[in-house]
C-alpha cells in the first residue's frame, strides 16, 4: 500500500521537477531534459499502474477537505490503473520521440513552454484518471482540456491552427458542461461528491434521471472521445498539432472520453435498460463507418489518421454498447466479453495510433509534406520508418499477427453473441451494426493499403519525397518500441485478457477469463457445460496430452456451450504466428533450394514501353480512393469545387479544373443547420434593433402588457 502511493507521489514530484527544469533550462536543452524526465515519469507511473493491475491492490490518497464539498480523493482502482497504464505506455515512447522531433521548432516557438505544458498535461491526465470525487475530477478535466488545447495549438502563428484550436476548446467545453451536469445530477441524491458514495446512492435514482444522466454523460464525454456528432474538432485539431502531440491526442486524450463513459455508465451507475446500450452501439457503429469513409478519401496523412481515430473510437464504443445491452439483459459474462473486447481494442488503438502518428511525424519532419499525393517511394529512403508504419498499418487494418486483429475479431464475435438475446428488434440492430462494423474493417484495409502504398511504395511524386532522409535513431527507437508492443499485444492475447478481466470483473461481477482464455486443451470432468460422455471421449482422443506440451492459456475461445457443439469459436494468434513463421520460412527455404542453380535477374517493372515512366504517370492517393468516393457518393455529396475550362477559340483547351470538395456529413447535417438557425434568429433579433427610440419605447410597453396579462391569467 505504502509503496504504490508513495511511488505515485514520486510521479507527481517528478512532474513538478520537470516543470521546474523546463523553466530553468534554456530552449536548446529543453527537448533532451523533457525526454529524460518525462520518460522517467512514464516509467514510474507504468510501474504503479502495472502493480495495481496485476495485484489488484487498490490504493487511495485522501487529499484535503473542502468546505461543504467533501474530501478530495485520489484512488487508483483497476479501471483507473488500466487507463493510467495505457497513458504511460504511450507517453514513454512519445517522450523519447520528442527529444529529436522538437528540435525542428528551435528558435521558432518556445520549447520552454512546450515542456512546461507537457509535464503538466501528463500530471493532469494521470490525476484525472485517479480522481475519485466530482470536484477533483472536473478540476483535472478542465486542466487537461486547456493544456491539451495549448499543446495542440503550439504552432500558434499559423492562423488555421488557431481556429482549429478554438473549435477544439469550444467543443470540449460544451462536452464538459454536459458531463458536469450529468455528474451533478448523480450527486444530487448522494449528498457527497465522492464516487464511492455516489455509487451506493445511485440505486435509488428514477428512470428519467437515469436517462438524463446517461444522455448527458454519453454525449458530453463523447465529444472528447471523438464520437459523432461531436467529432468535427478532431480532424481539424490533428493537422494543427505537432506529431508527438497528435500521438498523445489519439493515443491518450481520446481514451479519457471513453473513461468518462465507462466510469459513469458501467461503474457508478450501471446501465439498467437496453435503450442506452442500443444508443451507444448505434452511435459507435455510425462513428466507425463515417470515420473510416472519410479516412479513406483524405490525403493528408494526419487528417486520415484523425478520421481513423474516430473510426476506432466508434468500434470501441460499439463494443461498450454491446456490453451495456448485455448487462441490462442480464448476461454478465457476455457483457464482460464485450467490455474486454472494447478495452482491448482501446489499448491496441492507443498503441498503433501512437505508432502511426509518430511515423507520420517522422515523415513530416523529413519530407516536409504530409499530402500522400506528393509522397511515394519513401520506403527506399526511409526504410525503418516505412517498416514501422507498415506494422502500424497492418495492426490498424486488423491483420494477424498484429494486435488489431485480436480485438476487432473479438468485437465482431461479440456482435454475433446477440443470438442469446430475446428481442428480435435488438437482434436486428446487432446484426446491422455487426455488418456495418465488418464493412468498416474492410474499408480500413483499403484505407491503409492506400496510406502505405501511396506514401512508401512506387515512385516519389515530388522532389521533396525523393530527397528525404531517414530520421535519427532517437526517433526510430520509440517507433520500434510501439511496433514491438503492437506485435506482442497481437500474439499474446491470452496473457492480456486475464489482466483485463481483473479490471472488468468488478464491473460485471463475473470473471470471463475461463470463458475467453481457458487453459489449453483442458476439459474438466464435472463441468456442467459438458456431458461426461463428451469429456471422456475428449480424453480418449488424447487431447489432454496437449496440455503438457503446450503450456499456458493457449486459445481465445468464445464458448457457446451447447452439449453437441461445445466449442464454436477458437483462435490462437500465438500459434498462428508460429505457423506463419514456419510457412514463410519453409517456403523461403524451399524456393532457395529449388532455385539454387538458377540465376535471377532483376528488371524494372513493365511500363507498356513508354519512354520513361514519370512519377505523374503513377496512381495518386486521390486516384486510388476515388472509387470509394464514387461508390459512397450519397454520404460524401462531394460538389465540384472548380470545374472551369479555359480555352482558346472554343476547341483548344488550355486548362481544365476538376477539383471536388466535400463537407463532412456531420458539419453538413448537424452543425451547419444549427449555425444557420442561430444566424437567422440573430438576424431576426437584429431587425428589432432599429435604433429608433420610439420603437424601443413600444417594446417596453408591449412587454409590460404581456407581463400584466400573464399575471392576470395566473
Amino acid at each position, binding site marked *: 500500500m505504502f509503496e504504490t502511493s508513495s511511488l505515485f507521489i514520486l510521479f507527481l514530484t517528478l512532474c513538478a521537477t520537470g516543470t521546474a527544469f523546463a523553466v530553468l533550462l534554456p530552449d536548446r536543452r529543453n527537448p533532451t531534459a523533457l525526454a529524460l524526465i518525462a520518460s522517467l515519469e512514464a516509467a514510474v507511473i507504468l510501474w504503479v499502474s502495472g502493480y495495481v493491475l496485476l495485484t489488484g491492490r487498490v490504493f487511495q490518497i485522501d487529499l484535503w477537505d473542502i468546505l461543504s464539498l467533501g474530501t478530495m480523493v485520489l484512488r487508483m482502482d483497476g479501471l483507473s490503473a488500466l487507463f493510467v497504464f495505457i497513458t504511460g505506455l504511450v507517453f514513454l515512447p512519445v517522450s523519447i520521440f520528442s527529444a529529436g522531433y522538437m528540435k525542428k521548432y528551435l528558435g521558432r516557438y518556445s520549447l520552454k513552454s512546450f515542456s512546461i505544458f507537457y509535464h503538466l498535461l501528463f500530471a493532469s491526465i494521470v490525476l484525472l484518471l485517479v480522481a475519485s470525487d466530482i470536484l477533483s475530477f472536473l478540476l483535472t478535466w478542465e486542466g487537461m482540456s486547456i493544456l491539451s488545447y495549448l499543446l495542440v495549438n503550439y504552432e500558434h502563428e499559423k492562423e488555421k491552427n488557431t481556429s482549429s484550436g478554438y473549435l477544439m476548446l469550444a467543443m470540449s467545453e460544451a462536452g464538459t458542461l454536459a458531463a458536469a451536469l450529468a455528474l451533478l445530477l448523480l450527486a444530487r441524491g448522494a449528498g457527497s461528491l465522492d464516487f464511492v458514495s455516489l455509487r451506493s446512492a445511485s440505486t435509488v435514482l428514477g428512470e428519467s434521471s437515469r436517462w438524463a444522466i446517461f444522455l448527458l454523460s454519453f454525449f458530453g464525454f463523447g465529444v472528447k472521445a471523438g464520437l459523432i456528432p461531436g467529432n468535427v474538432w478532431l480532424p481539424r485539431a490533428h493537422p494543427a498539432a505537432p506529431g508527438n502531440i497528435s500521438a498523445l491526442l489519439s493515443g491518450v486524450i481520446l481514451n479519457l472520453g471513453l473513461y468518462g463513459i465507462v466510469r459513469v455508465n458501467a461503474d457508478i451507475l450501471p446501465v439498467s435498460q437496453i435503450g442506452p446500450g442500443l444508443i451507444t452501439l448505434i452511435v459507435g457503429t455510425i462513428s466507425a463507418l463515417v470515420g473510416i469513409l472519410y479516412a479513406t478519401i483524405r490525403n493528408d496523412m494526419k487528417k486520415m489518421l484523425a478520421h481513423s481515430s474516430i473510426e476506432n473510437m466508434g468500434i470501441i464504443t460499439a463494443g461498450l454498447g454491446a456490453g451495456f445491452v448485455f448487462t441490462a439483459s442480464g448476461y454478465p459474462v457476455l457483457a464482460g466479453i464485450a467490455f474486454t473486447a472494447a478495452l482491448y481494442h482501446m489499448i491496441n488503438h492507443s498503441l498503433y495510433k501512437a505508432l502511426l502518428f509518430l511515423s507520420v511525424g517522422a515523415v513530416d519532419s523529413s519530407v516536409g509534406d504530409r499530402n500522400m499525393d506528393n509522397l511515394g517511394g519513401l520506403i527506399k529512403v526511409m526504410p525503418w520508418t516505412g517498416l514501422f508504419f507498415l506494422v502500424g498499418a497492418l495492426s490498424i487494418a486488423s491483420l494477424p499477427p498484429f494486435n488489431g486483429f485480436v480485438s476487432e475479431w473479438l468485437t465482431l464475435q461479440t456482435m454475433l453473441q446477440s443470438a442469446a438475446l430475446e428481442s428480435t428488434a435488438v437482434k436486428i440492430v446487432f446484426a446491422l451494426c455487426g455488418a456495418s462494423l465488418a464493412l468498416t474493417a474492410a474499408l480500413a484495409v483499403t484505407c491503409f493499403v492506400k496510406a502505405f502504398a501511396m506514401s512508401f511504395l512506387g515512385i516519389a511524386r515530388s522532389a521533396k519525397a525523393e530527397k528525404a532522409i531517414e530520421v535519427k535513431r532517437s526517433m526510430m527507437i520509440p517507433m520500434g518500441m510501439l511496433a514491438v508492443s503492437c506485435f506482442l499485444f497481437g500474439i499474446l492475447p491470452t496473457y492480456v485478457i486475464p489482466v483485463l478481466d481483473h479490471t472488468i470483473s468488478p464491473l460485471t461481477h463475473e470473471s470471463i477469463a475461463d470463458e475467453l482464455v481457458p487453459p489449453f486443451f483442458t476439459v474438466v470432468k464435472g463441468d456442467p457445460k459438458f456431458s461426461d460422455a463428451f469429456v471422456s471421449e475428449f480424453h480418449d482422443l488424447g487431447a489432454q496430452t496437449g496440455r503438457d506440451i503446450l503450456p499456458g492459456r493457449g486459445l481465445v475461445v468464445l464458448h457457446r456451450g451447447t452439449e453437441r457443439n461445445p466449442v464454436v469459436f477458437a483462435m490462437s494468434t500465438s500459434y498462428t504466428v508460429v505457423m506463419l513463421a514456419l510457412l514463410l520460412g519453409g517456403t523461403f527455404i524451399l524456393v532457395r533450394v529449388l532455385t539454387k542453380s538458377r540465376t535471377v535477374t532483376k528488371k524494372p517493372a513493365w511500363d507498356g*514501353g513508354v519512354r520513361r515512366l514519370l512519377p505523374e504517370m503513377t496512381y495518386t492517393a486521390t486516384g486510388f480512393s476515388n472509387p470509394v468516393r464514387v461508390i459512397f457518393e450519397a454520404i460524401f455529396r462531394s460538389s465540384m469545387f472548380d470545374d472551369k475550362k479555359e480555352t482558346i477559340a472554343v476547341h483548344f483547351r488550355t486548362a481544365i479544373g476538376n477539383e471536388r470538395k466535400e463537407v463532412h456529413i456531420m458539419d453538413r447535417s448537424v452543425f451547419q443547420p444549427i449555425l444557420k438557425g442561430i444566424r437567422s434568429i440573430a438576424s431576426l433579433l437584429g431587425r428589432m434593433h432599429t435604433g429608433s427610440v420610439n420603437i424601443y419605447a413600444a417594446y417596453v410597453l408591449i412587454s409590460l402588457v404581456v407581463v400584466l396579462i400573464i399575471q392576470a391569467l395566473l
Partner: protein
Amino acid sequence: MFKWVLKGLKTGIVTTLYPDKDESAPGASPGLPVGQKDNKEEVLSVVSRCPTGALSRYDHQITVDYELCVHCFRCVRRIKDPIDWQNGYEWAASTAESAAGGHKLGKAFRRSLHIRVVDAGACGACLSEIEQINKPYYNMHRLGFFITPTPRDADVLLVAGPVTDHMRMPLKKAYDAMPTPKGVVAVGTCALSGGVFGPSFASGAGVSELIPVDIMIPGCPPPPLAIIHGLLVMVERRRSSSLTSPKSQAEGRHHV
C-alpha cells in the same frame, strides 16, 4: 444468353485441322512465287518487273528472296510467262544463328507457349492476320499458344513491322523485359527486311537490326497458317521450311 449458346453449338467446329492435316480451303493462303530452274529468256525478264528486288537471276536460274517479296503479283499477272506460284503456307524458317544454336526453348515450351505481340510499325494486315490465329478458324489455344498481356510472362515475341524509329525503344524494352529463354518471331516482309518502307530515316531494315530473330515468317502479310507454322517451328513441333535461299542473302540486297 441461351440463344448465343445455341448459336455457338449450331455453328459447330470450323477450326482448321492443321498441323495434323493439311489445310486446303480456298483462300486460306495467297501463296508465294517460287524460283525456276528454267532459263528461258522470257522468264528471266520477269526479274526486271520485281519492284523490290526480291527476284534475282543467278546462274541461269531465278531465285526469290522471300525477305523482300511483297506479293505485288507483278511477276505473275499481265505477263506472258509468269513465274511459278505455290499455294502452301509452311513458310517459316529458322535463322542461321538459331539453327546453329540448337534448341532455343526447352521441351517444356512445346505445349505451352506465351506470346507477346509487338507492333513495330506494321501496316495492319500482319496484325490482322495475327489476330486471326486467336479466332475460331485457327484457334491457337488448341496448340497451347496464348497471347499474354505483358512481356514479363512471354516466351516469344511476335514482331511485325519494319521497326520505326519511334518503336525502337518500346521494342527493345519489351525484349529486355522478357525472361530467358526467349525467342523472337519476325512476322512479315517488313519485319524481315523493312519491306517497302525501310531502311529510311524513319524506319529500319527489319527486326534483326535491333534484337536477334529466331524465326522468320515471310509474306505480305503471312496468312494465319504461316504464323502458326512459325510458332510450331519455334517449339520444334514442325520442321523449318527451306524457302529462304541462302544464296540470295549472300548477294546482299539492293533497292531500286
